[in-house]
Structures are given as C-alpha cells and as structure tokens.
C-alpha cells in the first residue's frame, strides 16, 4: 500500500512549521520498543532492519536523563533508504524545492503518525562540549536528554539543539569534510535532516559531513528537524479546560485541537506510541549490539575540537530556553544586585548568581550584542567578581572587537580581582589578532579570486561564523574599524564599547 502524507503549514510561538500526517506507511524509519528488562525501557531508533540508536531509561521517569548509544550505521540501510535523504537535504538547502516538497520523500519513510517539521540551528555536540559524531559509541547518560526538564518547565517550547549521529564515525574523512567546506566557502548552503529522539536530542539522519564542515569552519549548522507529535497537554490550570486534554505537543510547538483537522486528529489517536516494524525481531537482536567503530585511532580536526569548546552545553541551553524575554530594565535590575524589579516581580530567579548565569546564557544564544555589553558590564562591576570566571569563560569564544576591548581592559587593569582572568585575556588577545588578520586576508583573497565584488549573501556565507550567529568578513572588517575607532576614543578617555547600554551607567555609578 502506498504511504499517504498530508501536510499543513502552520505558525507557532517559535516560528513557522509544517504539520504532516503519515498513514499506511511501511515504517522504514522509526522508533520502536526493544525493552528486555522489566522496569527498564529501551527504545530503538531504526532504519530498515538496522538498529541505529538506543535510548534507555527507568520506566515512568520523565525527569531523568537517558542513556543513549549508537548500535549501527545508517549506511547499512542505504539499500532500502536509497538516495531519498540525500536528495531531500540537497533540494531544500540548495533552494531547489520548498520544505513542503523537499521533505515529502523522507516523510514517506516514517512510521504512521503526526509530525512537526521545522528548520532550526543545531549544535553538532553531545550537549556536554564534545563533537557529536564520536560521542555515542559508549553507553552513558546524556545531559539534557530527559523529556521533561524542570529548568525549562512544561510551558516553554524550544527547538531541540543537539544531535546524535546515525552514521558510523568511519564515515568521517578529512577529504570529505574539506570538500564540504569548499562548498560552504563558495556560498552553498549545507544542512542536515534530523529526527527528534528525546529531550534536546535529535538523530541526524543526513548531513554528518556537512555538520563537521560547518563546525570546522565556524558556520551555523541548520537542520530540517522532524519531531513526532506524540504528547497531549491539558488546559491551563484554573481555566475552563483545566482537566481536559486540549492540545498536542512536541518540544517545538503546542497545537490546540482546534488548529488541527479532524482527519489528522483521528490519525493521532489511532496510532499507538509503540510500533512494531516489519523487521522487529532483527532490529531487537541488533539493538543488543554495540557499534564497533574500527577507526578509533582516527581523530577529528583540531579546528572542530577547538570550535566545539565554544558551543553551549545542555545546561546553558536549558537556562536560555527557560527565559521568555529579558529587557534592558531586567538586566539593569540584575546589575544593580537585585533579583526583583521595581514592581516586585522576580526577574529570573530568587538566587542572584543563578539569575546572572541564566541571563548570560540566554543573551549569548539570543542576542550577541547585548550579551557582550552585559558581560562587559558584569566584568567591570567589582561587586560581581564571583561571576567573573564564568562570564569570561563564556566570552572568550566570541571573536569581537568589543570583547577584545574588555579583555584588553582586564589585561591592563591592576585590580586583584582580575588576576585569575589575565591568562584568559592574554590568550584571547593573541587569538583575536590572528583572527582579524586571517579574516581580512580571506576577505581580500575571496574578492581577488572572484574578480568581482560578492553579493551580500555570498559575503555573509564566506566569513567565519561566531557562536551566536554567522559573522561575515565584512562584519569583521567593520568591527576592526570600530575597534580602531574605539582605541582612539579610549585614548581620549571614553568607553565606546559600553556607552550604548544604559546598564553600563549603572555599573559606573
């Protein structure tokens, strides 16, 4: 029987997404239950008859992190998957097809049910600062993998940011990563396709080399994320529907019943959370095995290792997801040493340093400019010296003229509170000068090679990306100029890097 896929485009609080209903499918790709011990659940993500990733946890425990490990490689299922994943990924990221059209062949491979599909930025790490591709060959508990994170709470939506590989690490080659990097530099967009597994983690079905290339060259890595819509939620407490199930949810979105067609709702309710694929016995048998890597001596490039360090971990992401919005007033309140605003509302948390940490994490992910200014303000506030180490360690991964100013100020300061930060500041200054030099050279080379000025899109892709958004070479040049201007102003006694934010006044007071 041919798989039926119906699609609706919707908009949620976190952005636009596609809602897809899959029926009469052959369940080529899916997640099935392969538990062997009572009380311990094991879910296995499979493709064809290959068991790819196992997720193990104690029964009825939504708050505990899951043990996740790879069992095989998706390459072994290429026979049944064909080139559908590769083509879908290429078609979307090259702009040849819109998401609704590009993703259709992949949806036909999934098991029956409702799915939310969206495109989001992901970090190819295990949520603990390790490159994702070689981090799941040993069974261990993965931070941020619990379906319910008390830090984020039940009401917040987020795009799952971390990845679990489905391809064996033997697929990693410097040559392939180099080729993908060349595509990036030439202006092509690269991405991947991922299927959400649990908590903040999705299994990368396609785009492992692209992920490695993006991370090595400090580009953002975007993924088409497919999230099974498999949870129900009750109405707001105290409302008319308090005890009624009124909506469906996945990490990215909550959709009220009234926004879903009856046919799709019927499809949701008739599908069970546990499916038995055609090759269940073989999958279950293979799920007991561990992935044998065979190339353990192989290492990822040093650039990947270095850039991964600057990526946020699961705790940072959770604290960032926990905050809806932070106004300048809120930041001023925190900088003034208080956790409650003038109206008596708690800004983030009653715990002051927790509030500072959350605010730093949130700004680092959502608003780089404000992050730098806020971090700078903290580092210049003697009352917040306990947070210096944390903030400086977050700041050091961002190549920015203003950050350089802050670290220069720390290096030159004789304040004893900065003693522990001096080595970070000096290292940063060295890296920053290498970075600006390299960026300018690369910018000039790119233009010389092309023989003509680049379009704005090309130039933005050609530059090196920072953690909180890709940075173009042009941006770097502008920053470089700003830095020089700043140095001139500073020599006259000004502080251009912080003057734009009101909170710096607070610090100066």
């Amino acid at each position, binding site marked *: 029987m041919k798989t039926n896929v119906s699609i609706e485009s919707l908009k949620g609080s976190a952005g636009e997404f596609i809602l897809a209903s899959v029926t009469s499918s052959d369940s080529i790709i899916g997640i099935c*239950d392969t*538990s*062997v011990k*009572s009380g311990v659940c094991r879910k296995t993500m499979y493709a064809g008859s290959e068991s790819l990733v196992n997720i193990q946890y104690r029964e009825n425990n939504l708050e505990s992190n899951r043990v996740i490990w790879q069992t095989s490689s998706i390459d072994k299922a290429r026979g049944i998957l064909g080139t559908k994943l590769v083509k879908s990924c290429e078609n979307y990221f090259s702009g040849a097809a819109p998401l609704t059209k590009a993703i259709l062949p992949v949806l036909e491979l999934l098991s029956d049910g409702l799915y939310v599909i969206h495109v989001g930025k992901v970090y190819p790490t295990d949520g603990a600062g390790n490159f994702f591709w070689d981090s799941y060959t040993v069974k261990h508990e993965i931070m941020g993998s619990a379906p319910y994170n008390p830090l984020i709470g039940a009401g917040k939506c987020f795009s799952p940011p971390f990845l679990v590989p489905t391809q064996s690490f033997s697929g990693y080659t410097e040559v392939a990563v180099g080729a993908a990097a060349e595509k990036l530099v030439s202006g092509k967009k690269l991405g991947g396709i991922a299927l959400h597994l649990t908590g903040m983690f999705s299994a990368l079905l396609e785009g492992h080399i692209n992920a490695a290339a993006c991370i090595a060259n400090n580009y953002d890595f975007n993924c088409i994320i497919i999230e099974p819509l498999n949870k*129900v939620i009750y109405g707001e407490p105290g409302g008319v529907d308090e*005890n*009624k*199930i009124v909506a469906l949810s996945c990490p990215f979105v909550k959709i009220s*019943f*009234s926004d879903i*067609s*009856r046919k799709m*709702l*019927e499809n949701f*309710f*008739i*599908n*069970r*959370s*546990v*499916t*038995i694929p055609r090759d269940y*016995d073989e999958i*279950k048998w293979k799920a007991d095995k561990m992935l044998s890597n065979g190339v353990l001596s192989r290492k990822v490039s040093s650039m990947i290792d270095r850039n991964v360090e600057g990526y946020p971990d699961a705790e940072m992401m959770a604290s960032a997801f926990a905050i809806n919005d932070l106004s300048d007033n809120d930041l001023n309140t925190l900088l003034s040493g208080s956790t409650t605003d003038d109206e008596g509302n708690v800004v983030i948390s009653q715990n002051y340093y927790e509030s500072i940490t959350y605010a730093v994490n949130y700004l680092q992910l959502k608003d780089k400019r404000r992050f730098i200014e806020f971090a700078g303000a903290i580092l210049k506030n003697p009352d917040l010296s306990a947070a210096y180490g944390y903030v400086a360690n977050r700041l050091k991964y961002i190549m920015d003229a203003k950050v350089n100013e802050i670290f220069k100020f720390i290096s030159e300061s004789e304040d004893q509170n900065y003693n522990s930060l001096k080595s970070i500041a000096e290292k940063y200054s060295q890296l920053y000068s290498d970075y600006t030099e390299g960026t300018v050279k690369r910018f000039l080379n790119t233009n010389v090679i092309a023989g003509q000025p680049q379009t704005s899109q090309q130039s933005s892709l050609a530059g090196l990306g920072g953690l909180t958004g890709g940075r173009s070479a042009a941006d770097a040049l502008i920053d470089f100029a700003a830095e020089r201007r700043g140095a001139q102003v500073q020599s006259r006694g000004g502080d251009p890097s912080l003057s734009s934010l009101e909170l710096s006044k607070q610090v100066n007071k």
Partner: protein
Amino acid sequence: MAFEALSGLMLPVSQNDRTFVIGDYFAVFDDDTDIPEVYEWKSVIGYAETSDSFEVDFEREKYMIPKNAFIDNMQIIHFRTIVEGMLSGVKGVQIRIRDRIIPPKFNYSNADLSTSVFTATGIYAEKEINTGSVSHIYSKLKFPIWLIAALTAVGSFLAMWGIGRDLDKNYIFYLVIAFFIGLGTGIVIYLIMCIFARYRYSGFLKRDVSTVENIVFIVAPDGFGAIEQCIYCGKELIPWSFAKYYYETKHSISIVCRDKSVCCIPKHLFQKNEQNDLAEYIAARVAQD
C-alpha cells in the same frame, strides 16, 4: 500497560452519533464537532462488559458502546484487548466482566518472548473445556461432594435401621445399601457437575467471542498466556507470579490465576513428547492443585 503495539481502533457508533477512537487515549468525537473529548486511561473509574455492550466510566462522563456497533468478533476482541491492556496496572478501576474462556488482558504485562519454550496455535475443542471445567470444579468441591455422599450413606444407614429395626441380623446388608446410596449420590452430583460444565461451555459459546477464535498458547520462562491470534503481538505474557496453581486432565493443562481466571492449554496442540515436557515445565513453576 500491555498490548501497546496493537494498532488503535476507530469505531463509529450510529446509535449515539459518536465516533470512538481507542488507542493510547480514549477519544470521542461527536459527529457534529471536530474537537474530541480525550481521556487518559488512568482516569477511568469503571469498566464493564455485559452481554450486549461495553461501558467505560470516567469521572465526568460514562460511555456505553453497544456490541452491535462492532463489525465482527475480531473487532470486539481488538477493542477489549486495547482497553484491558491499557487498564492493566491502573489502580482503583471497578471492573465487571463475565466469565471468559481465556484470562482477561488485565493480567498481562510486557515480557521478553524471545526464549519461548512452548508455543502452539489452535481452537479450543469442547472436550478440553468441559473436562477442564469439571476437573476445576471437582478440585474445588471434592471434599464437600464426598462429605455429602458420606452423610447420605450414614443417613440412609440410620434410616434403614430406624425402619427395619433388626440391626444385628441385617447389619451387613444395611451397610452395603448405605454405601451404594452414598456412592450413587456422589456420582449423581458429579454428573450434575458435568451437565453444568457443558452448560458453562455453551454459555462461553454464547458470551465469549474468543471461543471460536484461533488462540496462541505460550509457555515461556517469563510467564504463560493464551491470546487470540488476531491480536497477538508477541510481547505480552501473564507472569508466573500471577499463577496460583495448575491442574492436569487427559486433554489439557489448566493454570488458575490469582483473579480466578483459567488459562487452559490443550495438550493435543503439542507433540506427544512435548506434552510431558510441558507438564513438567509448568509443574516446576506452579504448585499442582
């Protein structure tokens, strides 16, 4: 929970203009609205199967699904398997179901069947159920039956003594007659039991749709089970801890569960040499009645 891998069931019920969707949730669509009433199984407070309907009670609402809304027997089995599977482990549910030929699905839990020792499929034959029923009732009423027979014998002896009076002379004669009267009483009660067992079987035929279905019988290290083939997923068993005792007849081995339901395993479905092994395997795990 059990039978979670069984596909959901959509059931339009024209009698009350509703469509029920039974799966991980209990969803009810009124025909004039597209927004369903949805319940989690843990909020069920009562479940009943009567001769002509199923009733599922929630705190807010009670739903009655007539059996004539189902297309066939298979759909009835499918429905009650999902409901009972989802209700297994849910505490505080008032359950009213009639006698079934195989144990209800509340008793099952997820298990590893990869090392199943004995598996067979077949339909129950009347003699297996009858002999099983008789044997079961007899094992329960053995003492009262023979107590009644003995009392009848003593009673008839005393009655004959009272009427005939000449005890010294007819002592042996009275004793023999009293013995046969007692024996006869016991046999009559036993025959009534057989008639009752036959009646019970015909009752199963009328009441329980599983009687005419192919049943999969499994005996494994983790437990045992008798599950209709049409809904068999190969993932559920009744744990051995739930078995109370077993009894064996010429035609079957019956395992009695703690909720008094009986899992009757017909011997003829197994090879001759397997039959002894099966009995020994069960005997090693459950006490014999």
